[in-house]
């Protein structure tokens, strides 16, 4: 069951009773503030075009109110778009019949909600089996699968508790177990980790990465945490006022932020864990010196390896072990601490 890419094309969402009437005005440049003031409609999304990689993790970031939850709800059509399409495996989700949509939601998608949205009258176990129960999977089978995920998210022993007997972070993990138990191609995670403490958060990131290694689902992951985005995301899109301001890989976004908004966004990031050695190496002149570093290694690991080996110089080698560039410890350190690229850009 290979997962496919999700193509979001020319998507607009205008909240309000006559949203459709304003699409053209928005296309001609009517802004969010003006639309709200003059016409009392809220611009949720405008002109969204994103290709979410098949079997990869698509991270969506942006400030509060920028439209992240609105976007992710379009993928399983909890929200109907005002204009545009959402294609999965060539089918426009927005045009599915009620029946097809229900089947699509049952078998192709699973969602973790920002506000958990657990069923308060069901225990942890009964919440976790919900998706399978709706699909009509037998009780024994679904409970077996549910227990596996309850254990994996660290909630063993709480199977028979009710949601409001659990802490926020525990409830969020029930939501996660509920979605994972569904074993769907598409995993929609709306700030799925926001209520978790740092340790469990890293553990849950590992769960997701392990899952991806094996099962390669198409994951849409919303987060406010850039480090998390960089760790998980094969691709990152940043939203502002319902518009995509930049999309690309983590490296691209950290090294060449499109504008001041994104610069502000990436300022606090741990660059040593994002930038690869080949990004800052200089061309080889003469013989390769010092220790070899594999392509794709991040600066932090390179610095650790070099200080561990007490060497000051190193060279980068490609997959075949051929040297392709050189760098030294001071270069690495300065790239880790100063955001060269956009500092330079501003100076220029």
């Amino acid at each position, binding site marked *: 069951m290979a997962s496919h890419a999700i193509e979001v094309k020319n998507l607009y969402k205008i909240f309000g009773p006559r949203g459709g009437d304003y699409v053209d005005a928005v296309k001609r440049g009517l802004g969010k503030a003006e639309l709200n003031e003059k016409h009392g409609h809220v611009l949720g999304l405008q002109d969204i075009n994103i290709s979410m990689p098949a079997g990869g993790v698509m991270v969506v970031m942006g400030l509060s109110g920028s439209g992240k939850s609105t976007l992710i709800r379009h993928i399983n059509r909890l929200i109907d778009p005002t204009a545009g399409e959402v294609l999965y495996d060539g089918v426009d989700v927005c045009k599915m019949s009620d029946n097809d949509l229900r089947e*699509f939601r049952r078998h192709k998608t699973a969602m973790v909600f920002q506000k958990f949205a657990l*069923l308060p009258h069901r225990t942890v176990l009964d919440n976790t089996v919900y998706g399978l129960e709706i699909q009509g999977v037998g009780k024994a089978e679904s409970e077996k699968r549910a227990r596996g995920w309850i254990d994996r998210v660290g909630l063993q022993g709480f199977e028979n508790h009710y949601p409001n007997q659990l802490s926020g972070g525990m409830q969020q993990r029930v939501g996660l177990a509920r979605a994972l138990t569904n074993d769907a191609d598409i995993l929609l995670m709306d700030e799925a980790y926001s209520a978790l403490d740092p340790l469990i958060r890293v553990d849950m990131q590992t769960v997701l990465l392990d899952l991806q290694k094996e099962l390669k689902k198409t994951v849409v992951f919303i987060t406010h945490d850039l480090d998390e985005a960089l760790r998980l995301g094969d691709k990152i899109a940043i939203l502002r006022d319902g518009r995509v301001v930049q999309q690309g890989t983590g490296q691209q976004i950290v090294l060449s932020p499109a504008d001041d908004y994104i610069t502000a966004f990436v300022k606090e990031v741990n660059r040593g864990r994002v930038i690869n050695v080949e990004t800052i190496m200089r061309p080889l002149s003469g013989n390769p010196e010092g220790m070899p570093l594999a392509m794709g290694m991040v600066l932090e690991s390179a610095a650790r390896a070099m200080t561990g080996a007490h060497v000051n110089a190193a060279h980068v080698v490609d997959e075949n072990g051929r040297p392709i560039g050189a760098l030294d410890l001071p270069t690495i350190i300065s790239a880790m601490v100063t955001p060269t690229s956009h500092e330079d850009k501003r100076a220029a």
Partner: protein
Amino acid sequence: MASICSVLPALLCKFPAIDDGTIRLARKTIDDGFKGFVRSYGDAIDTVVQPLQWFLNYLEGAFVASPWILVLIVMVGVVYYGSRNVNITIGTALSMIAIGLVGLWNDTMITLAMVTVCTLISILIGIPIGILMARSDRVQSVVNPVLDVMQTMPSFVYLIPVVMIFGIGKVPGLIAVVIYAVPPMIRLTNLGIRLVDQEVLEAADAFGSSAWQKLKNVQMPLALPTIMAGINQTIMMSLAMVVVASMIGVGGLGKNVLQAIANQFFTVGFLNGFALVGIAIIFDRTSQAFGRRLQKHSEVIHG
């Protein structure tokens, strides 16, 4: 006043009522039409409500004919099972024994049978209508005014058409009671479903629940406490109405009260009144405790 009327035109002074002849004609037409309708469909209507009659007779027979000790044990069992509360259970046993001692056991059984059937029918009618109302704003805007009329119309008034259609007896009494007691059932079912958290419903949708699955798995269970409050209200209103319904031939405690009023039997009136209060409290406390037990999942609130 006369002085004002001398300057005002007569039209603005004395209300220009439609003249008596017209009203009389309209009244006669409506009354005759209704009587005609009853004459031609009376048999059909009787056949339709016949099962009610059987059910009512059967239950009344069962309540009255069973040995009192058996009824008492079953009642105490039901109350304990419903409330899981020893005080309520003991209270029930004591009130029933007191009722028996003053010689009102049989009448109480008749009233209990009546209230039980009325409540069951109200639930059977009320919940589906409440669900329909919750699903559609249009249905709600049609049903709500009807409920307003049903709840404010003096109960004696709708006894008139009920008697005209069904005559005197238990079934017309039952219908009158149900008309009076069903509105809170409908309203609170509607309210309970509408109050269900949108986010939980969204989650149910996201997993592909059908409308029926949503109703069964999410809306009804979460609306249940409110629905239980509706059932409680319905029981209380049935108990109040069985007294009025005794005017059209319902037996039991209500009938005794009616006779006591007619004959100024002070003690008899109050004894029967207290018996009614006794079973009202039993029903009320039991159904409330049962409702609270259903909300067990929300007992421990955690941030």
